[in-house]
């Protein structure tokens, strides 16, 4: 038998659990932890590995991908991996004249799923333009084509080869800005100290050192990964980068190909939206290479894994082999 007082308490309990608690949870904002010197704490090891690429594949018509299509993408990737790794019958020798390929997929770490933002799967990192494609200024890209062709064909000495092969910076735009995912080593370690934020990029062991509340260096100073300064906008780290290195203009990986002109201005935002996630957003203003500004966003997810050293120079037998290969071709 329930008396009136018990009935009222039961109603209160039901209201809180069924209506009140979900409302509280929905409205709850993540309380960003602070460093010992009071800045919002972004420190840790993070990964942006994902099947979602910079540009939207033609198969997708919108930024948001439904659950069914996201599952298809996951399944197709597994089938691709199997085909990539098992393209020969047992005992069969690879065919002469075929693509020499690379190494099989175990050496890679490109993710298994499209990433999610606010619970929705995304078809592209690019959020603007709305078609998810780079607004390329084709004349500018055409001018670069010849230089790019030279870079991959000339092998008279190491300095003619690409920056990745020379162990100068990682290939593609893994080190950024903007920092984009590639086939492996998609890990970043953020370390903060008063006045500085350092982002260590596992690919090629590149380190971005962002000076807080500072001025840009003189325009004639062109550093690898550009000149980055930053400031806090509430709990969001805003990073502005300009004076990009001219040799880092063309950034190519199998998952993205972008141009970043010397005069480009790039703004990045890092907002910790949960214990295990940073929302990474960027905007690229580059009139020389693009007809319009382009914007993108992706999550950086916490990783419990270590970042391992990428001591590129010490083990770079490939450079000698590439040059030897060019000499062998010349003799033929």
């Amino acid at each position, binding site marked *: 038998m329930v008396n009136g007082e018990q009935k009222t308490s039961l109603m209160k309990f039901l209201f809180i659990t069924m209506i009140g608690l979900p409302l509280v949870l929905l409205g709850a904002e993540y309380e960003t932890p602070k460093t010992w010197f009071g800045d919002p704490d972004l420190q840790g090891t993070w990964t942006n590995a994902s099947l979602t690429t910079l540009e939207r594949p033609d198969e997708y018509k919108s930024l948001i991908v439904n659950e069914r299509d996201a599952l298809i993408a996951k399944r197709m990737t597994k089938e691709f*991996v199997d085909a990539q790794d098992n393209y020969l019958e047992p005992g*069969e020798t690879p065919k002469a004249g075929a693509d020499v390929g690379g190494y099989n997929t175990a050496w890679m770490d490109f993710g298994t799923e499209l990433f999610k933002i606010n619970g929705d799967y995304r078809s592209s990192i690019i959020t603007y333009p709305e078609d998810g494609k780079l607004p390329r200024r084709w004349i500018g890209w055409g001018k670069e084509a010849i230089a790019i062709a030279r870079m991959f064909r000339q092998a008279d000495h190491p300095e003619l080869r690409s920056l990745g092969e020379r162990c100068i910076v990682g290939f593609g735009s893994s080190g950024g800005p903007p920092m984009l995912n590639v086939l492996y080593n998609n890990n970043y370690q953020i370390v903060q100290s008063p006045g500085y934020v350092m982002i260590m990029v596992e690919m090629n062991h590149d380190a971005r050192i962002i000076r807080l509340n500072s001025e840009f260096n003189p325009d004639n100073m062109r550093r690898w990964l550009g000149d980055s300064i930053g400031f806090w906008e509430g709990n969001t780290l805003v990073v502005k980068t300009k004076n990009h290195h001219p040799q880092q203009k063309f950034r190519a990986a199998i998952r993205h190909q972008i141009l970043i002109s010397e005069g480009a201005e790039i703004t990045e935002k890092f907002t910790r939206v949960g214990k295990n996630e940073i929302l990474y957003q960027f905007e690229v203003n580059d009139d020389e290479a693009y007809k319009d500004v382009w914007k993108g966003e992706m999550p950086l997810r916490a*990783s419990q894994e270590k970042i391992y050293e990428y001591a590129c120079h010490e*083990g770079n037998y490939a450079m000698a082999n590439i040059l*030897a290969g060019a000499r062998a071709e010349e003799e033929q």
Partner: protein
Amino acid sequence: MRNIFSYVVFLILFSFSYTIYGHHAFTAEFDANAPINITGKVVKVEWINPHAWVHVEVLKESKATIWMVEGGTPNTLIRNGLTKNSIKPGTVINVRGYQSKGKLCLPRCIANGRDITFPDGSKVFMGSSGTGAPRDGSDPKER
């Protein structure tokens, strides 16, 4: 006309990007007309970046030749629990791939390893076999 120009430029750029498989273009280093299918004993494993190298001793008509076989960055495999000790010296493996363009074999012959197989048919470094499936950190069970 402009569309054709754009298409041609894109094809040029994309074709180059395909060769940029990882740290470097394998097509610049290896000869598509020199496929290999070799079996021998592992004598040394270099677990280094930017690429791991497995050294294999191949016997042909009683003559031993050392082949250096190029793999990818070991970082991914280390994260998945594999180390250089996972392939111990003395282990017999089969390697299929392509020889380098430079074929002097001094001091060693060089090849890339599209795959590496043990005598019992099991393969090492196969993403699809569960020994190194790519992870993206989105699954909390992976952590």
